[in-house]
């Protein structure tokens, strides 16, 4: 399961690089349609985008950007980080479920 999530996360990073946020949707849908399952996809998407954020923080001033964007948005900066992680999670889970349904699975991730 762990290796599957890791592989999915790598695929999600690649998909994001190629197609931006649509890449997450397409990859998750494809996974759901291929495997008939949605389990692990959401976690993989979160891990994928989170790993990119971590990489960004390692090579650039991400905390300063978080603070500045929070100031511009008039909201705590960490909310934007949370949004950045919740968004691919919701996108990937929902796309994978729909993909699994299309394939004919039960989409609950356990079958």
């Amino acid at each position, binding site marked *: 399961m762990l290796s599957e999530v890791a592989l999915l996360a790598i695929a999600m990073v690649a998909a994001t690089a190629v197609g931006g946020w649509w890449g997450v949707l397409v990859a998750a849908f494809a996974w759901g349609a291929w495997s008939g399952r949605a389990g692990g996809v959401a976690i993989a998407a979160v891990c994928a985008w989170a790993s990119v954020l971590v990489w960004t923080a390692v090579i650039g001033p991400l905390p300063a950007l978080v603070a500045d964007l929070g*100031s511009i948005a008039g909201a705590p900066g960490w909310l934007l980080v949370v949004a950045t992680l919740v968004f691919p999670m919701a996108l990937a889970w929902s796309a994978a479920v729909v993909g699994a349904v299309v394939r004919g699975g039960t989409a609950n991730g356990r079958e």
Partner: protein
Amino acid sequence: MTVAPSVLTDIHRPRSVWRAVIALVVLAASVAAGSMRLGPALDPLNGIWAVARGTELPRAATGRIPGLSARVDVWYDTRDVPHIFAASEEDVYRALGYVVARDRLFQIELQVRAGAGTLTELVGRPALATDQRTRGLGMPRAAERELAALDTASADLRAMRAYADGVNAWIGQMDPADLPIEYRLLGRRPRRWSPVDALHLLNRMSATLSFSDLERRRMLAAEVAGDTVARAVFPVHSPLQQPIVPTSVPGLRLRKGKVPAPGTASAGTELDTIASALPGIDDTTQAVAGVARRRDGAEGAAGSNNWAVAPRRTKAGYALLAGDPHLDMTLPSLWYEVHLVVPGHLDVAGVTIPGGPGVILGFTRDLAWTFTNTGADVTDYYVEQVDDMRSPRRYLLDGAWRPLELRTEVYRGPRGEVLQVDTVRYTHRGPMRLYAGHWVSMRWTALEGGGAFGALRAGPHAHTTAEWLRVTAGYDVPAQNMLVADRAGSIAIRSTGRYPIRPGDGRGDLVRDGSKSSSDWTGWLPLDRYPAAVNPAQGFLASDNQEPVDPDMPNPTGGAYLGANWETPWRAARINELLRGDSVVTPDDMRRWQTDPGSARADYFVPYFLDAARRADSAGGASAQLREAARLLGEWDRRYTRDNERAVLFEAAMAELSRRAWARLSPLQYPVLAAVPVPSSAVLVELLGDPSSVWWDNPDTTAVETRDDVLAASLAAALGTVTARRGPPGDSGWRWSEVRHANIDHLLHIPAFSRRGLSVQGGTETLSPSSGDGVLGPSWRMVVQLGPEVHGWATYPGGQSGNPLSRRYANRLPQWLAGTLDSVRMPHTPGELAASDVRATLTLEPAR
């Protein structure tokens, strides 16, 4: 139809059905949110987070530019200055476009759009009024006509094309992380560059520096106090003289004059009504600044300085030159520092305006140059007679109808949608607009330019001051006090620009009758009559935006009208005093003087306040508050250092004095009129010379007040004001660092990207002035020593990068605030830079 069976299968499992339904809803919501900019923005690889990865230049990078004749090497030193080594001048401009776009892409687009009147295409409808003002001034049309008039083979046009190639090459090759954050916040992409953009940029600079509202000022005053007074309070010649072209008088000279008593108001006359409706200088500069910036117009809020010292007055025996143009301070900065090298052809270090091909202020291995703004009057207005007041198509000239040129202006939004369409009409003089029910055309040299770009490009090719003056002779607008010094020890200054000659009395501060061609300009001041001085006997030259020549002394202009209402020469008096007092000047002296806290204005006015208080005390009429105020002011060393606790009292007293002295110019009796701008402190000096002038008398009291009454009352009131606002004397609120600040805003006024409330040394009319809202200031400080090896020192309030997250965004600010300068490197070849001096390299190859 393979879907249906699976769905039917799921229907028998209620939890799965609900799960599928919820997933569909979540998916729809996610896609909707993602499509509304959230998806691209949050994408950590390509979205806004990527900005944090593009903050610094990679150690080594490569790029390709179409049209390059050979490889270009760019070496960034530890000050983040790119040294560009190219095989030809066109290649150097291609590389410059690439390099500047790499660091300042959003800035150059914003500035150019401000000059082109197309800000709406970037920021949408909020910029519509700004764009309409810019186009109404005729600026985009002027740039297009200037470009069309260029010979297709001219070096100027080739330089503009090369620069555009470089910018476009960067736009085409940049990584997602390199897209500036401002584009991401606005949801826009950069637009491609074209050669005309360089001219839009120059026009914007011209508008900032050459637009004047003398007519409006003078006539507003005439409406309230009569024409004679208007001419006196906004005079053609400064009552206080310390001109750029040296005279036999070493210090400040007060001209013989008197501010006449208020006369019959002329409010209500046709011309006055028009004049008061004309655009004020604030409206115009705000329009072309391209940002919602308001300049407060406070006297002494801005002012550029330059000075040069001949070898015989310097310690090392080499000519020295210093310059610090005071302009809008923004982040990223107005300037970008570069070093351009084409072996055997060009070798120049200095600053470029991002978006413009070339170094504007800087030095070569032979000479150095810097500018201050002349402030010449190159704008005139004409009341036109038209065939149809609502929609004119013709105007009357010498009894015959002439067709108006109609130019349709289409304003588009970010998605190309049309926001507004209007028509700008042109007479042979320039754009015509409706003011207070009258059609008024405007003639402005900025709309007839064509010499500035070529002159600025040619300057760095000169080897001596004489040659530099020759190749820049065609420079036209905005007129600049161009100071130059060379390695042979020669120093020279010339107020270079295109000065119109008006008919009749020659004055340009009047609205003229447009129905007669005899109202038109009759020609241009010839070059040999420009204010100029070469190697003066005094051994130094200085300019600080003051009147270039003393009209009562021999001068080359032959009495020609150059402008009016000049800057009061307080800064000139101060720097000339420092220069006269030192015959062994060092580069460090030059640097120190750029932030000198002394004030010729304070030296002049403080004794008047103290004398008035003393007289009141002797006559038994001094209140305890006046005595205390005089005591406190008497303690002042007349310096605007950060820890000074008395400058605040003096500034409050000056504000009171000005308000009380010019109370009769208040438009309270004509509430429909705009406020009359406050006359300069030079006119106040003139008024001080007339102690019993009626201007000192308060019309609202039965007593007859004199000058000393007003001075004493102003000083006492100032103590009350300052105490009420800042606590009793001795409280920290009196400290100058708590009073005056520099405020350097981001171009879009985003607080997180701005640096505000910066404590600075200097006050009103000091060499590094600090007053008003703090948005204007020394935008570039440079000192150059022209020895066998030229050596330069410089800094500016900002940093080389336009990325607010970059280390290079505002890293020069501490140095600028401290008044120190960096040594400027000027390697002959890339190999001359030690490895430890190189921060990054960029290799540019011809595009295949």
